[in-house]
C-alpha cells in the first residue's frame, strides 16, 4: 500500500515530522516501509503558463513559436515541438534556470535562429510515471485544466511536494490497505489524533428505492449489500488533486466516477462499484452464487465462464452483471454516455472472493481487499463519502436514502486482558496505566479494573481476536528493544542426539576422513529412474507430485542412486573424473497406487565410486578403483560401527548392476538375517547410457545399522603366548568363493585358529583350465600356553584334509 504523506495529513497532523524518521518508526513498530518515494524527481522552477499564441517556426516544420504568459514580468517566447500545443492552453513552463528530472537545466537558447526563453513540458519530462498517466497525457505536452492560476509552481499543482511511503503489509494488517487505517497506525505511533472525513451529503428529491432494488440470495457470503442512486452525472476528468493522489497510490486516473470509487476505496479500504443505472435490467441488483457454465464479459472485455458457486451480482432478469468483489461487467460499465449511477458498497466474504479471483486468475485492488475481509463498519461511510464526492465533482444528484439489505450488523469485540499475563508473556513490568495508554493510542477503548483491562476492539482491526493479539499490540508499541533479555527459568534439560542422529554424524565423519565427499541431491527425480534400482523397494509404486514443476523433478526418489549418478555425470562433464561420493538421506516407499497415507521414508546411505583411487603423481602411477575399494569402505564402516561380525555378502544379480560384480549385503540380527542393501559395479549398459567409466555403487538401509551399531564392548585380553603362522596355497575350481574356503577352514580348525586371511589369488595356464590358486595365511594360538609344532601340524593337516574333501582342493607345494 502506497501511502502519500500529503494525503495522509488530511487525517492526521504530520507537523514537525521527518518522513524518513517516521518510516523507521513505522517499520520498528510493525509495518515494514519498503521504500520512500519522492514524487518530485528533481523539478524546480516550473510554473503554470498560458499559451497566448502559437505560430509556425519559419525555418522548421515541426516547431512552433509560442508566446506564453507564465506570470513573469514579461511574456516569454518559447519554441515548442509538441504537436498538441495550442493557443489558449494552460501548460507547465520550465523557466530559464529551471531543472528537470535527469539533471536537465533550462537555458536561454536559439532554436533554428529563434530565441526560446524556456520549455513547455510533457508529463514525462516532469518525472510522472508514464504508466499512470491518462492516455491523452502520454504524448505531447501536459495540458492543464483551464481554471489553474498562471504562475502557480507546478510541483504544488501536481502534488510533487509529496513523499510516498510504501507499506509492506503482512496478511494480518489489511486494515492498513486504507489511508484511514494507515492514519490510525501512524496516530498510534505518534500519539496524535485521527480526523475522519465528514461527508456532507445532500440527498434530496427522488427516493433511491424507487429507482433501484436489491436482494441477497447468498447471505452467508454477503452480510451487507448497500447502494445509492446518483442521477444526472456528467462524466469528465476528476479534479487534479484527486488525480495526483491516485497516481501517488499507483492508480491511473480514468474519469471522475471511476476515480471517485478508487479514491474512496483507498481512503476507507472499502471497494465500491459504480454501475450505469440505465443498463441494469429491471432496476434490480441481486447477489447470488453462479450456476455451472454461466458466462460474463468482464470490464477487461474477456468472456469468462464461471464455476458453480462463484458469487455474482445479477440484474432484474437474473443475468450476471458483475463478479462480486472482483470485477464489474462490461455491459453495465460506466461510459462517457452514462448519466445515472448505481453505486454499490458491500461486505462480501473473503474466502469467496479469493476463490473467484484465483480460479479466474483475476486480481484487482478490490479483490485484494475483500479477500482479507473489509471493515463491515466502513460499508456505509464509504458509500456516503463517494456519493458526496460524485455530487461535487460529477454534478450528480444523490437520491434520497440508501437501499440495502443487512444480514449482520458489525459488532465490536470486547477482550479481557490480564496485566499479569501480559507481563508474564513478555517478561516485562508494564503497568496498567502504561498498557491502557498504549491501547488508547490505537483508539481501543479500555475499561475495567487494574489487573484485568476490558478492551473494546474496533471492527477495522479484524485481526485482533484474543488476548495475545492485544499483547502483541502493546509489545510492538512498547518497543521490542525495551523487552529485557533473559534466559529460560525452571528445569534444566539435557540436550543431545538420538542414537541414529549421533551415528549418522559419525558415519559422515568417518567417510569424509576416508576421502569420501558428501553430496546432497534432490528429493524429486525423473519418472521411471527409481525403477532402475528397485533393490530397496520391490513392489513399490512411484509417488508422483500432483503438479510437478518439470518432468525431471516429478516423482519422489525411491533410491539415492539415480540422483548420485546424475551428480557423477555433472562432475565428469566438468573434468572431475575421480569421484568418491556418499549421500545420507531419505527415500520414499509405498505400495499404494494412489496414496491414502504418508509413504514410508527410509533413511539410507548411498555410495558411488569411479575413476582413479590414486591419481597419477610424480612417485606413483594412477590406479583405477575396483569393486574392492567400495567393499573395503563398507567393511571399514561396519567395523567401526561394531557390526563386522553381523554382516555378510552374497553374490547377487540385482537389477542395474553388473551381474558378476555385485552382491547383496546381509545383517544378522536378533530376528535372523535380513537384506539391508546392495553393492557392486553399475551394469555396463547403464554405464554406457550415462557415459560413465567403470562405476561402483552401494545403497544400504540405515535403520538396521542404527539398531545394532555400537553395542557394549568388552576388551579382549592381549595374548601372552606366541602365535604360529602357517601359510597354505590350494588349487581349486574358479567357481569356489574365498568366503567358502575360509568358512571351511574355520570349521575344521577349531578354537586354535586365531585368524585366516587370503593373501594371494591367481589363475594361469600352469594351473589348468577353470582352476585358481588361493593362498591363505593361518595364525594359530592358544591363550594359555605356547603351542607345540605337533599340535599345530595336527590341526593344519585337518584343515588341508577338510579343504580337499569339500572343494577337491589340491595343496600347492
Amino acid at each position, binding site marked *: 500500500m502506497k501511502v502519500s504523506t500529503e494525503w495522509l495529513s488530511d487525517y492526521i497532523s504530520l507537523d514537525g515530522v521527518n518522513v524518513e524518521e517516521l518510516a523507521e518508526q513505522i517499520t520498528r513498530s510493525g509495518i515494514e516501509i519498503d521504500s520512500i518515494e519522492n514524487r518530485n524527481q528533481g523539478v524546480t522552477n516550473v510554473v503554470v503558463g498560458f499559451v497566448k499564441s502559437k505560430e509556425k517556426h519559419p525555418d522548421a516544420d515541426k516547431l512552433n513559436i509560442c508566446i506564453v504568459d507564465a506570470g513573469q514580468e514579461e511574456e516569454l517566447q518559447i519554441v515548442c515541438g509538441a504537436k498538441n500545443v495550442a493557443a489558449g492552453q494552460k501548460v507547465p513552463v520550465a523557466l530559464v534556470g529551471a531543472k528537470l528530472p535527469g539533471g536537465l537545466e533550462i537555458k536561454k537558447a536559439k532554436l533554428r535562429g529563434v530565441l526560446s526563453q524556456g520549455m513547455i513540458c510533457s508529463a514525462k519530462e516532469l518525472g510522472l510515471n508514464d504508466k499512470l498517466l491518462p492516455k491523452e497525457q502520454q504524448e505531447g505536452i501536459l495540458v492543464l485544466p483551464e481554471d489553474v492560476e498562471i504562475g502557480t509552481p507546478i510541483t504544488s499543482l501536481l502534488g510533487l511536494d509529496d513523499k510516498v511511503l510504501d507499506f509492506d503489509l503482512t496478511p494480518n494488517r489489511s486494515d492498513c490497505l486504507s489511508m484511514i487505517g494507515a492514519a490510525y497506525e501512524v496516530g498510534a505511533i505518534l500519539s496524535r489524533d485521527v480526523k475522519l472525513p465528514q461527508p456532507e451529503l445532500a440527498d434530496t428529491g427522488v427516493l433511491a428505492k424507487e429507482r433501484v432494488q436489491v436482494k441477497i440470495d447468498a447471505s452467508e457470503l454477503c452480510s451487507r449489500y448497500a447502494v445509492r442512486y446518483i442521477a444526472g452525472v456528467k462524466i469528465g476528468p476528476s479534479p487534479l488533486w484527486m488525480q495526483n493522489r491516485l497516481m501517488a497510490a499507483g492508480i491511473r486516473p480514468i474519469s471522475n466516477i471511476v476515480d471517485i470509487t478508487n479514491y474512496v476505496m483507498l481512503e476507507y479500504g472499502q471497494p465500491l462499484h459504480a454501475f450505469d443505472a440505465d443498463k441494469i435490467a429491471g432496476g434490480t441488483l441481486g447477489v447470488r452464487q453462479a450456476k455451472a457454465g454461466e458466462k460474463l464479459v468482464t470490464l477487461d472485455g474477456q468472456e469468462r465462464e464461471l464455476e458453480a458457486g462463484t458469487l455474482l451480482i445479477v440484474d432484474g432478469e437474473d443475468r450476471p452483471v458483475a463478479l462480486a468483489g472482483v470485477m464489474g461487467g462490461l455491459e453495465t460499465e460506466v461510459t462517457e454516455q452514462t448519466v445515472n449511477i448505481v453505486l454499490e458498497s458491500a461486505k462480501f466474504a473473503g474466502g469467496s472472493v479469493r476463490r473467484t479471483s484465483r480460479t479466474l486468475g483475476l486480481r484487482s485492488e478490490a479483490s485484494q481487499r475483500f479477500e482479507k475481509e473489509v471493515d463491515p463498519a466502513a460499508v456505509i461511510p464509504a458509500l456516503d463519502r463517494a456519493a458526496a464526492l460524485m455530487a461535487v465533482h460529477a454534478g450528480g444528484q444523490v437520491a434520497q436514502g440508501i437501499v440495502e439489505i443487512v444480514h449482520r450488523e458489525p459488532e465490536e469485540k470486547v477482550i479481557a486482558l490480564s496485566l499479569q499475563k501480559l507481563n508474564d508473556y513478555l517478561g516485562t513490568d508494564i503497568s496498567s496505566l502504561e498498557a491502557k495508554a498504549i491501547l488508547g493510542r490505537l483508539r481501543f477503548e479500555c475499561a475495567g479494573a487494574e489487573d484485568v483491562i476490558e478492551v473494546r476492539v474496533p471492527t477495522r482491526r479484524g485481526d485482533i481476536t484474543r488476548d495475545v493479539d492485544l499483547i502483541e499490540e502493546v509489545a510492538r508499541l512498547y518497543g521490542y528493544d525495551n523487552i529485557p533479555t533473559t*534466559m529460560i527459568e*525452571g528445569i534444566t534439560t539435557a540436550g543431545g542426539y538420538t542414537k541414529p542422529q549421533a551415528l549418522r554424524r559419525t558415519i559422515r565423519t568417518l567417510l569424509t576422513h576416508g576421502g569420501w565427499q558428501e553430496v546432497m541431491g534432490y528429493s524429486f527425480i525423473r519418472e521411471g529412474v527409481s525403477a532402475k534400482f528397485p533393490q530397496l523397494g520391490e513392489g513399490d509404486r512411484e509417488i508422483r507430485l500432483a503438479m510437478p514443476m518439470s518432468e525431471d523433478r516429478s516423482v519422489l526418489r525411491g533410491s539415492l542412486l539415480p540422483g548420485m549418478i546424475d551428480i557423477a555425470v555433472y562432475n565428469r562433464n566438468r573434468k572431475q573424473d575421480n569421484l568418491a561420493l556418499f549421500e545420507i538421506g531419505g527415500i520414499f516407499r509405498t505400495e499404494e497406487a494412489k496414496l491414502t497415507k504418508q509413504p514410508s521414508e527410509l533413511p539410507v546411505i548411498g555410495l558411488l565410486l569411479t575413476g582413479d583411487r590414486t591419481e597419477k603423481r610424480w612417485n606413483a602411477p594412477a590406479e583405477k578403483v575396483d569393486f574392492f575399494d567400495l567393499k573395503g569402505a563398507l567393511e571399514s564402516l561396519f567395523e567401526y560401527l561394531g557390526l563386522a561380525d553381523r554382516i555378510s555378502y552374497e553374490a547377487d544379480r540385482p537389477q542395474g548392476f553388473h551381474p558378476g560384480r555385485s552382491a547383496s549385503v546381509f545383517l544378522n540380527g536378533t530376528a535372523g538375517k535380513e537384506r539391508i542393501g546392495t553393492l557392486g559395479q553399475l551394469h555396463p549398459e547403464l554405464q554406457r547410457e550415462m557415459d560413465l567409466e567403470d562405476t561402483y555403487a552401494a545403497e544400504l538401509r540405515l535403520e538396521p545399522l542404527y539398531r545394532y551399531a555400537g553395542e557394549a564392548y568388552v576388551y579382549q585380553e592381549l595374548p601372552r603366548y606366541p602365535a604360529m603362522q602357517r601359510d597354505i596355497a590350494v588349487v581349486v575350481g574358479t567357481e569356489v568363493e574365498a568366503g567358502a574356503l575360509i568358512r571351511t577352514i574355520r570349521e575344521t580348525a577349531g578354537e586354535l585358529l586365531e585368524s585366516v586371511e587370503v593373501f594371494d589369488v591367481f589363475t594361469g595356464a600352469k594351473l589348468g583350465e577353470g582352476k585358481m590358486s588361493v593362498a591363505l595365511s593361518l595364525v594359530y594360538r592358544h591363550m594359555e600356553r605356547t603351542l607345540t609344532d605337533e599340535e599345530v601340524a595336527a590341526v593344519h593337516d585337518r584343515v588341508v584334509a577338510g579343504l580337499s574333501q569339500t572343494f577337491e582342493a589340491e595343496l600347492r607345494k
Partner: protein
Amino acid sequence: MKERLEALKAEALKELAETVDAGHLNDLRVKYLGKKGALTEILRGMGSLSAEERPVIGQVGNEVRAAIEAVIEEKQANFQRQETEARLAAEKVDVTLPGRPLKQGSIHPLNQVIQEIEDIFIGMGYRVAEGPEVETDYHNFEALNLPKDHPARDMQDSFYLTEELLMRTQTSPVQVRTMEAMQGEVPVKIICPGRVFRRDDDDATHSFQFHQIEGLVVGKRIRMSDLKGTLLEFTRKMFGPNTQIRLRPSFFPFTEPSVEVDVTCMKCGGDGCRVCKQSGWLEILGSGMVHPRVLEMSGYDPEEYSGFAFGMGVERIAMLKYGVDDIRYFYNNDLRFLQQFARV
C-alpha cells in the same frame, strides 16, 4: 721370535695402511689375527721357548695384537663413517616435491552449518527432532493455525501429492508432532532441522528445495524475554561475541506476537556494507511466541503453558557465512565447490 713378531707387525700395518675397503680390512683381520692367522701361527711356537723368554715374548705378542687391532678398529670406524656419509648423500630427497596426501572429503556445507547450529542448541539443552518430508495437510498447515483457505495452502505454492498430502513447506510440523508425542509433558525443548519444499522457480536466491532449522520451547512461564535471550546467546555463538540482535514486529500464523530477528552484519560488524545493503543488519530469523491455538491443538493448555518458536533458513546462513552468492551451488554438487569445505 721377537723379530718375527716385529716383522709381522710392520707387514700388517703396512698392508692395513693400504686397505681402502671394509671387506679387505676384514680379510686382513683374519689373515693376521684370526684363529689360523699369522700371529697365532707365530705364537704357537712359544712352547719351545724357555720359561724366562715366554712371558717376554707373550707380552710382545700382545702388544703386536693390540697395535694391529687398534689400527683395524680405527680403519673400521673410518670406513663406517664414509659409508654413512655416502649413504646420506645418496638418500637425499627433494623436500619441495609434494607429499602423498591424506584424502579428505567434506561434509556437505549445508550439513556443516546444520551440525554447527545443532551443537550450539544441544549445548543449551535442546534435543534434535526430525519428521517426515511428506506431511499431512493437517500437520503442515491446520495445526499451525493456517486455515483452509490461507494463501500459503494454494496448489500453486506447495507441492501436493494428494488433497491431503504434500511435501512439507516448513519444518514446523515437526514441532506439532513432537508436542503431540509428548502429550502435554513439559518442558518441550527441541530444534528441528530438515528439508522443505516450495514451488519457487530456481534462481540465485531461490530453490524449490531448501533447509530450515526451527526451534520450539514450551513450558511454564516461557516469556518473550527468554526468546530474546536465547536468540542473543545463539547468534553470539554462531556469528561472534559482539553480535547484537534486533526484533521487528512481523506476522506468522503460528506465533503471536511474531517478530523478525535481525543480527549485526557479520561482514561489516554493523557499519554498513554491500552484504547488508548498508543497513548494518541482516534478517536471518523469524520467531515469536507460540500461538495459543497451536498449543491448544497439540494438547497444551495456553492458560497454563506458553512457548516460543523460531526458525531460520540454512542456505541463507551458509551463503552469508561462506560468501556464496548462488543457492544452486549447494545442489549442483560440483566437487570443485564441495571440496572447498574440506577444512575446519
